[in-house]
């Protein structure tokens, strides 16, 4: 069972490299923002798999913190795109 979860972990890390490919290759600015947003959601899955593998509950705390801060970061980038100052 541990080896099976290891394989899933490697697959998830490989998927996050696809997001890096889109960040480097993407022709416009919004493509890169899509890449960093998807990367933030994928790592929550990595946290969940590690918490199953080690049977500890505190890894899920990091996952919840990651969700909240990724939301704040994406809102900042989206507000940049729509052409406003950050305080309007």
């Amino acid at each position, binding site marked *: 069972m541990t080896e099976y979860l290891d394989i899933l972990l490697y697959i998830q890390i490989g998927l996050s490299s696809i997001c890096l490919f889109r960040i480097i290759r993407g022709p416009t600015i919004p493509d890169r923002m899509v890449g960093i947003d998807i990367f933030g959601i994928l790592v929550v899955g990595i946290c969940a798999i590690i918490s199953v593998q080690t049977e500890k509950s*505190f890894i899920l*705390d*990091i996952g*919840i*913190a990651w969700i*909240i*801060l990724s*939301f*704040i970061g994406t*809102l*900042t980038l*989206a*507000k940049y795109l*729509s052409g406003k100052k*950050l*305080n*309007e």
Partner: protein
Amino acid sequence: MKGMTVIVKKTTQLIAGMVFLYGMYVIVHGHLTPGGGFAGGVIMAGSFILLILAFGSDFMHLTKEESGTTMYENLATLVVIFLAASGLLLGTRIFFLNWFPKGTLGQLVSAGMLPLYNVFVGIEVASSILTIFLALVIFKEEISE
């Protein structure tokens, strides 16, 4: 129209309180789970940053002269130094003396004075991050060349 769309505003109203409470959870459980004063303080500041991003800066009635966050920051730093020096008041010669009763390992009330340090460091970090954000983002128009 001030701020972002209706969808972002309504969702932010529902989520911001939850973010603030989660920051408090990370601070208070700093000696049992990962986290502690620094991470929880930044998450608490993040809830206010979220509200400012969604609604614009007018709704909190911030005055341009003084926002009052630096006061909390300096007070919290003074309390941390006073707690560290409280070992000297008892007659010993040790700075950072942990003189509270320890309690049992793994419970919420344990580890002596470490939760108190965590709480005040958290308040200090939250107000300082919020001050940096306000100074760099909102009060930038005040600079005149």
